[in-house]
């Protein structure tokens, strides 16, 4: 039972980060129908930038964190303006390939500047565990889940009540109608890219803090969110959250219980097996909008 709970808690923690990255993925897809395969690199870059600011300058953690967010906003805006805007109207394959090219470019930048070794992340959360009932949980985990929950709540409110959030939803619904209502679709695209970069960077910093180190493997999260968004539905923010936690738990449970039979590595492949099954049974996911084609 303890083993099960341990796996469950791990799954929820990792899953909450998945949810965050998936949120960025969904926001971009909803507004501009682009699958951003460079999402994992946004996450990695965020973690590295925050680490670099903390280690090279004397600023406190919160300031480094804010600077990282500012950097991510700039990165998102820049990429949208320079690289993505010329791709409007190009075939899907080109856009996918573009984000893949972008991801290897960003990864190369990170490797070129910081190398491939794991770099220790200064301790952010207190290390003694908290007892939840009979069961010790590391404080970093709780902080991480708390931050993610707060951020997701903030974005839910933003999409529901803020002017820009409503404009983004309108753009996602129909670009033409949004344009005729005086919404600048371009600004909404730019906004969605910066939101995606920001949430990924937050995910990266949290992961770095929880794991105590950052390295190139953080970029794997970009591919791991693919099953998440498929399970939740590509265009559903709620789906991203539910899917994130579900895939995180699935991955940890299957890894914990099936690894002895397969000799390890189940954790890496289980989400993708789930992905194939979901695609065969319910391709639009739990909360995704079903597209009906009419001629």
């Amino acid at each position, binding site marked *: 039972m303890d083993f099960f709970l341990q796996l469950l808690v791990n799954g929820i923690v990792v899953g909450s980060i998945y949810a965050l990255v998936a949120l960025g993925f969904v926001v971009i897809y909803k507004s501009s129908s682009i*699958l951003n395969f460079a999402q994992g690199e946004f996450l990695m870059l965020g973690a590295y930038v925050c680490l670099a600011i903390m280690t090279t300058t004397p600023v406190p953690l919160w300031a480094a964190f804010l600077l990282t967010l500012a950097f991510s906003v700039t990165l998102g805006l820049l990429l949208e303006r320079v690289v993505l805007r010329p791709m409007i109207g190009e075939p899907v394959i080109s856009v996918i390939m573009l984000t893949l090219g*972008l991801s290897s470019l960003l990864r190369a930048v990170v490797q070129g500047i910081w190398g491939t070794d794991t770099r220790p992340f200064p301790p952010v959360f207190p290390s003694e565990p908290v007892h939840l009932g009979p069961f010790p949980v590391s404080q970093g985990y709780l902080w991480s889940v708390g931050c993610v929950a707060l951020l997701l709540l903030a974005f839910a409110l933003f999409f529901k009540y803020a002017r820009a959030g409503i404009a983004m939803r309108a753009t996602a619904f129909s670009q033409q109608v949004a344009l005729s209502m005086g919404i600048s679709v371009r600004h909404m695209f730019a906004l969605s890219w910066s939101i995606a970069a920001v949430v990924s960077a937050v995910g990266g910093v949290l992961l770095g803090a929880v794991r105590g180190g950052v390295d190139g493997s953080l970029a794997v999260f970009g591919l791991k969110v693919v099953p998440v968004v498929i399970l939740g539905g*590509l265009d559903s923010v709620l789906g991203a959250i539910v899917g994130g936690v579900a895939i995180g738990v699935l991955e940890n449970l299957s890894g914990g219980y099936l690894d002895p039979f397969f*000799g390890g590595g189940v954790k890496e492949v289980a989400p993708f097996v789930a*992905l194939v099954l979901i695609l065969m049974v319910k391709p639009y996911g739990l909360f995704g909008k079903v597209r009906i084609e009419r001629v």
Partner: protein
Amino acid sequence: MRCGDFRTSYAADTTIFESSYSRNAVLLCLVTLAALPAFASGYALDVVNRCAIAAIAAVGLNVLTGFTGQISLGNAAFLAVGAYTTAALAGKLGLPFLMTIPLSGLAAAAAGMVFGIPSLRLKGLYLAMATLAAHFIVEFTATHWDAVTGGVNGISVPAASLGSFEFDSDARLFYLFLPVTAFLTLFATNLFRTRVGKAFIAIRDQDISAEVMGVRVFRYKLLAFGVSSFYVGVAGSLLAYQARIISPENFPISLAIDQLGMVIIGGLGSVQGSIFGAVFMTLLPELLRALTSEMADSYPHLTTLFAPLKMGLFGLVIVIFLVFEPDGLAARWRLIKAYWKLYPFSY
């Protein structure tokens, strides 16, 4: 002097070579290539062999992605299926390469068709994700099915041999790779002059209209997956014979992305373009390597930067091509040819 297209029959419209000049140019090119081992170094031949493997895989991927419009991120997986099939058939059963190469192609085709099944309901983005999943599942199998694949340690492949003649050097392998590549390229070019190829193109352009016109969309999509994966499987088989030892590390997801890059840079929907793209993307890292070792004396830390430089250059090239030359090298080649056709009276 030719100063325009004067086609008067359907046969002239579907011909492979527009003029006897272009046919002779291709033949001359092949003859020159065949004479290459006489004066090229082992390293150069190794690079050429890798170009050949990449070209076969890129042509295969282009059949699926460029001509049928189905996006696949699972190419490295199908390459792995081909390579491991060759390793198993040649290593354990001792079959000759004349049998293992086509059988590896067929094994990869079968795998490709299985993962192509989701294309019944899905298109575009979703298919990219299904094939991405295929990649990770095949990678997992290759890493953990020790009895057949040798796990992470890999498995060794005996040299391809014909009687007592062993294809064990780069020059000898070259004479195995060149005919296979030439034949498969010709086959792909011919494919798009037939009913099947036209059906692929119809599905790419508008699948619903294609269905209305009597193309069985699902059957042809699966067939496209099969043909494409067959090519990739053959490329995997040749890769096994060249590398002689294969392990899951030979088939990372970045390989699939590389190959998509070749197809994009070469030009979607052009057999010729895939070859351009494959050669370009294979030579690019080699040029970079030559350049970094040249400059290593003055900038010693450059050699440690080689891996990120290579990755960054790849990403940059993809992005630049997509933004500035979305139709790829094939389109550029056509423009160059058109320019010289009327030179110097182009107006």
